[in-house]
């Protein structure tokens, strides 16, 4: 056995409302970065990866009753999992299916919208409990009638990568036969102002790994994968396998990455060890590459420490989607599986000059390439670093 089978996936982000549209955007270099139209912020000059569907439009597409209490993250999550279900072998998910969802924002969007209504408008009070990050997970589970292990992981920008890791671990240990893993996060004023206060948002489209990079763009998305134990596969199409995973703490700073990229280095090393692979087996890397000075340098140093002077092809897709925080790990897991399935490397947008410190250059144009093994990195605030390895099903 070479890892846990992925038998389904679904996604919504600023570059597409399903797998197919997402793939075409990646292939043709079509980014989803725009100025905020749906998020009611005064920062109209900060580019974001916004999904151009309002909550009421999403509700309509999902045929939800008008008085529902879903957060935006729940709406996006349901939207993505509906696609997963449609493409799966199931009409309905078996009841014992587990559900592990990552989020960093939970239902803060609803608190922002309705906080001042709570006092005088009892109808809005249903959103008070929606602030709880677990509420979004429970609402998604309830929608699909999921009754297995249901849990929420909150480890900042590695949340959904950790959900994938945990799902794989639960299947390996025999605790679950089938589990939906991934994450969902929406844009909020809370995060836009917070990242802005840290002075790490770019006023232009982000330029991961470029020497002149000056910050990230926030984004929103939901992405989910179905993981299944061997006994459940029964001839189903296996889209790829999760064969390695590693998590480590950078133990350096609340929000900044260390100069030597120790956390990233450890996470990648652990993932390679778990997958029983050597550095030369990695064909392509989906980098975390947020476009901030700090992350991209730290990650580049870690890549050089791991791979020496033979750093594999790598690319950050944050220029397409923005940084979708807790959803990023799952979104990029899907991109990684698409790269393996289609034999394609998706470009790192907006790159022109290698950074002086490392001289590393990412893949800048769409390229065909046979890819058997992908590494995907997700690093979060709090020093939480996760690396996942995906392989072709053989």
């Amino acid at each position, binding site marked *: 056995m070479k890892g846990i089978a992925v038998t389904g996936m679904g996604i919504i982000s600023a570059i597409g409302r399903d797998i197919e549209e997402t793939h075409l955007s990646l292939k043709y270099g079509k980014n989803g970065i725009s100025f905020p139209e749906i998020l009611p912020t005064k920062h109209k000059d900060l580019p974001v990866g916004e999904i151009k569907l309002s909550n009421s439009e999403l509700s309509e597409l999902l045929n939800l009753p008008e008085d529902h209490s879903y957060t935006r993250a729940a709406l996006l999550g349901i939207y993505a999992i509906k696609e997963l279900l449609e493409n799966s072998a199931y009409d309905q998910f078996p009841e014992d299916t587990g559900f592990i969802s990552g989020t960093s924002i939970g239902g803060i969007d609803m608190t922002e919208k309705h906080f001042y209504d709570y006092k005088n408008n009892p109808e809005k009070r249903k959103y008070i409990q929606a602030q*709880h990050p677990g509420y979004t997970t429970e609402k998604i589970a309830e929608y699909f009638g999921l009754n297995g292990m249901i849990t*929420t992981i909150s480890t*900042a920008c590695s949340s959904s990568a950790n959900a994938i890791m945990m799902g794989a671990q639960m299947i390996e240990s025999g605790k679950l036969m089938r589990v939906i893993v991934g994450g969902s996060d929406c844009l909020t004023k809370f995060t836009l102002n*917070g990242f802005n206060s840290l002075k790490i948002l770019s006023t232009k489209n982000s330029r991961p790994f470029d020497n002149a990079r000056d910050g990230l763009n926030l984004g929103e998305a939901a992405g989910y994968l179905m993981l299944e134990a061997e006994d459940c596969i029964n001839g189903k199409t296996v889209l790829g396998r999760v064969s390695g995973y590693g*998590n480590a*703490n950078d*133990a350096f700073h*609340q*929000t900044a990455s260390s100069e030597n990229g120790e956390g990233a280095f450890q996470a990648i090393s652990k993932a390679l060890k778990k997958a029983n692979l050597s550095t030369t087996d990695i064909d392509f890397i989906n980098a975390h590459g947020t476009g901030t000075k700090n992350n991209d340098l730290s990650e580049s140093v870690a890549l050089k420490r791991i791979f020496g002077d033979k750093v594999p092809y790598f690319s950050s897709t944050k220029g397409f989607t923005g940084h979708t925080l807790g959803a990023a790990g799952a979104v990029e897991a899907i991109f990684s599986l698409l790269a393996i399935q289609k034999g394609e490397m998706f470009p790192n947008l907006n790159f022109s000059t290698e950074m002086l410190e490392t001289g590393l250059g990412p893949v800048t144009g769409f390229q065909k390439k046979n890819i058997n093994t992908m590494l995907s990195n997700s690093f979060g*605030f709090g020093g939480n670093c996760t690396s996942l390895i995906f392989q072709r099903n053989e």
Partner: protein
Amino acid sequence: MNRELFVHNSIVIRNSKVYKNGQLIFEAETDLSISKFLKKIYKQQELKYPKFFKMDNLSKLGYLGVELLTHGDIQDKETALVFANSSSSLETDTAYAETMNEFPSPSLFVYTLPNIMLGEISIRHQLRSENVFFISEDFDPGLFVDYSKALFQQKKVVNVLCGWVDLHNNEYDVFLWQIALSGGKKFNEEELKKLYLPTHE
């Protein structure tokens, strides 16, 4: 492989009291604000870690709990951290959100994630080990058992430090314990429940 696991030590911080392995080891006046209570523990324990004063209260609870649990010494640097709570970082979220009306505070924003506490603990003890942070409505012993057992089963670790560190409306509920392959009480849901709420026996 299903080896038996054991709980080594435990710490409970609740209602102005600190218990280690079920024994009351520290008590403060009940009308003390949480900040003062935490500072009192810090002083009483003669801790010397100036970063403490920069942390938000959730991180302070986690930091102090781990110091008390381990006597400030985690020998196995591969010890995994498996933490959870119910209220995420809500206290600091609220404080930060209030600054958004004027000038959003970066020093508060950096603490608006519950796993920053794991970062603080990792920095303090120079751990580069596996971390996870769950959100669940109530203390869920089954989740800790399942996740920790999977870590041991895969031979990823020989030590795990678990924590339930919740803080909401100035009410705190802290329960920390260590798991290893030998010694102490058996690690299962029943024992955890007993250690968590000994008064409900």
